[in-house]
């Protein structure tokens, strides 16, 4: 289904599961000095509970902007975004903070761990402010780091640091996990370990997971692959035969 047209996209997206996110006609315009940059040019999108979505596109296609809007880091210039009963497009700073605090887990390309806190403490930082978190130890065991609890970031490899970041993101049992190039700074071996952790979380906790990447290989492990190009959704593929991370190659 490589050349599906836009009408079909909606048909395919129409699922019996309840949508977690509903985005309609979102645009985002940045002012960069005197130039206006159209990062998103009218995106309609729904994400469903428990699905694993990969957002694929080249640099500057708008995928990060889309992820930021879904994650409550940014608001669209026009259009609406709803997360369940929250209107994210019109939320104020305080509401967005609350939203991030209770519903979203973030994973960054460069891990963004706090260097002055150990693995356990980096996770605790989030569990301390969450409503129904797992313990930091549980979360770290989930990413296979049960034996690195008291290591500082400077004592961990890149892959290990990213897995701590995964643990930190999932420890509060978020409904949504948003990952921006989670393997971008890693080699294939360690990257796969991180992806395994993500897949495991997705399966065990039924967390809706969206992963941004420009590494097409990762698309093979997604339920759906959303191709973004020049601020628009070019097409959406549904994967029939999902691969497990250790089958991926790049």
């Amino acid at each position: 289904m490589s050349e599906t047209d836009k009408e079909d996209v909606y048909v395919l997206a129409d699922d019996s599961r309840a949508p977690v996110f509903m985005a309609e006609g979102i645009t985002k315009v940045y002012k960069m000095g005197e130039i206006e940059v159209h990062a998103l040019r009218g995106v309609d999108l729904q994400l469903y509970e428990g699905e694993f979505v990969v957002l694929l596109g080249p640099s500057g296609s708008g995928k990060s902007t889309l992820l930021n809007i879904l994650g409550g880091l940014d608001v669209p210039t026009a259009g609406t975004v709803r997360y369940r009963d929250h209107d994210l497009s019109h939320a104020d700073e305080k509401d967005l903070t609350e939203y991030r605090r209770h519903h979203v887990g973030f994973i960054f390309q460069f891990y963004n761990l706090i260097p002055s806190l150990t693995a356990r403490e980096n996770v605790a930082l989030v569990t301390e402010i969450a409503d129904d978190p797992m313990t930091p130890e549980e979360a770290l065991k989930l990413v296979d780091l049960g034996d690195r609890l008291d290591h500082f970031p400077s004592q961990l490899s890149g892959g290990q640091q990213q897995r701590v970041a995964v643990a930190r993101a999932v420890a509060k049992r978020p409904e949504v996990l948003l990952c921006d190039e989670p393997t971008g700074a890693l080699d294939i071996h360690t990257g796969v370990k991180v992806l395994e952790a993500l897949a495991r979380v997705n399966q065990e906790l039924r967390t809706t997971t969206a992963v941004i990447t420009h590494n097409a290989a990762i698309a093979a492990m997604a339920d759906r692959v959303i191709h973004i190009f020049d601020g628009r959704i070019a097409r959406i593929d549904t994967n029939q035969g999902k691969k497990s991370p250790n089958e991926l190659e790049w």
Partner: protein
Amino acid sequence: MRAIHHKLLRDLWHMRGQALAIVLIIGAGVTLFVGQLSTLQSLTLVRDTYYSEYRFAEVFAACKRAPAGVADRLRAIPGADTVDTRVTLQVMLEVPGLDEPATGQLISIPDGHAPALNNLFLRTGRLPNAESTGEVVLVEMFATANDYHLGDNLTAIINGRRQQLRVVGIALSPEYVYALSAGAMVPDDKRFGVMWMNERELAAAYNMEGAFNSVSMTLGPGASEPEVIARVDDILKPYGGLGAYARKDQVSNWFLANEFRQLQTFGVLIPMIFLGIAGFLLNVVLARLISTQRDQIAALKAFGYSNLQVAIHYGQFIGLVVLVGAIIGTLCGWWMGEAMIGLYTDYYHFPILKFFMPGWVPLAAAAFTAVAGAIGTMNAVRRAAALPPAEAMRPEAPPTYRMTLMERLGLQRWLSQPTRMILRQLERRPLKAGASVLGLSMAVAILVMGLAFLDIMFYVIDLQSNVMHREDVKVGFIEPRSRDALHEVEGLPGVIYAEPYRTVPAKVRYGHRDRRVGIQGVPSDTLLNRVLDTKLQPFPLPADGILLSRVLGEALQIRPGDKLIVEVLEGPRPTRTVKVAALVDDFMGVAAYMEIGALNHLMREGDVISGANVLTDKRHDDELFAALRARPIVAGVSSKASTIANLRKMIEDNLMISVGFNVLFAAIIAFGIIYNNARISLSERARELASLRVLGLTRAEISFILLGEQAILTMLAVPFGFLLGRWMTGAMLLELNSEVMRFPLVVNEATYAIAAVAVIVSATISGLLVRERLDKLDLVEVLKTRE
């Protein structure tokens, strides 16, 4: 302008908040430096010009009555240049609207023309005519304070007779730049007036025809001052000589010199602290700038910029900050100097007193600042220059953290994650934290020191006036009198209690060292004139023996039990020896105390007194003062209340301003340090903090992490600053203490409290400014970049 200069200016603009904070601290230091040293320069120049143009004498002497012919013998002293003799007389003045009598100092001038030494600067009017009678030239301060003008009459009680004097001129004299009546500590322009009068007339009124009682002289080149003084003493001895003294011991000049010394101390020491802190901050800011610009440095070097050029580039950053700070400081210093000169004109009277700033003062300030800045930043600049391009291209290695001591002790379960972050951050950079604490302590200390000077002054005043000298009025007789005079005083209206005192002018000697003092004789059961020990308990006067001020004892190198030689400078001028009973700690002047009976015995005289200390019923003060004025035996009356009021006023005028500056500048220091620390932490940790915001932490929660660190530093600095301030005050006192004034180290609790509050408030304000930036943290940016 070359591209690299654009980069310089833009970097500065980018860090403008921090740069401004440093500029302000440099500005504060330079302001103090320029303001105080320029004032000192202005005063010194004016004084020197005044002294030389108006021929201020170099040696002074007083005696009881010497025949005019003795002057020739004085002129014959080798080394003596000009010798001027005159008649001086202390009188009481009746000033309309003033309850207590004022004291007048009458000084003779040659009939109809100006004196050869200590010449008058005539502000208006003329000198008395040669043949006229009752004409005087009045000192300007007294005329202004009491609203006397040319042609006005004033009433003096000369030798017991009321006499009308007419003001024909208003003048200033180099002898009375700081116009103090005998024994006073503070000028009282309303109650002390100097007048110059024809010699013929003054001598006649005082039975001094063909005689003199005051000598001033200048010295020729190469003359030995001590030798001349010794010769003058020898010559005047038979005529009741009271001991000659050099210009440096002349009262007005001594106070002036003392003030100059203070200006010098404050003008150099305090600015050094400021500039040291500025250097430290420059270092912190520049180190940070360099670590964020590693890639840029690498690029510059890859393009072929040499190490020297890179070093110069960052050196120029410091140079600009220093330059701007020095310019601002020089302008403010100019303004401060003008204001200080204005203040000095209230207490120090020169014909003209204009502020000027010698060119070297701001240049020295700038050079000094540049050196402080350079020392502070040398390391950072060297690091920048030494960075190999390839290494500079790579991001700095991730910082290494470890458990803090508290956690290793097992206390971590009490600490939240953000608290752990704060503690580990502090523990990872202990030097940086220590330097910040030191800087903030300096701010606290500067405040403590400034305020402590007020505490000390008021403490000394209180001690002097309420604990040691408890009389309301001090009455001095023209000549020592028998004890009957005390009964006369006791009988005056409004006198509740009167206590006699005896003052004997003497030269005290031990070995080859000597000093002139007035030996105070007081009753052993004195209530009004007590000698205190260090615990402020009354020190019992021994039945025989003499008590000396500790400074006097140290100056003479004499110890209790040693025999002191006393050369009395009045009456038959006997020379006696007396045992030193003890050394006492007192605050003002050098003093010697004896029990009045013991002193009388030493003088081989009967029950003789020099005056009385009196407790009065304030309701009858008018009658009392009128009665005292009417008595020819009374030479002078001083009221303690007005002395204290004058002292307080002077302290408030002078010290309040410098305390005000202190508060302002300490606030600037505290602000600058906290602001810079927090801004640097913010830029170093923006990514970390933004990540936390993305993870759902609120603004307040991340503010706590950043500002909590600053709060801990401030809290650590406060007690440390207390200690430092107390220590600095003590060090400053050592510098200021002299034979004339000794200050005890007193710091009130309120001083500590004010210092702490001022620094905490200023730290809070800078914290809030940084907090505002924290609120604008760009979360999206964080996801993209790696450092």
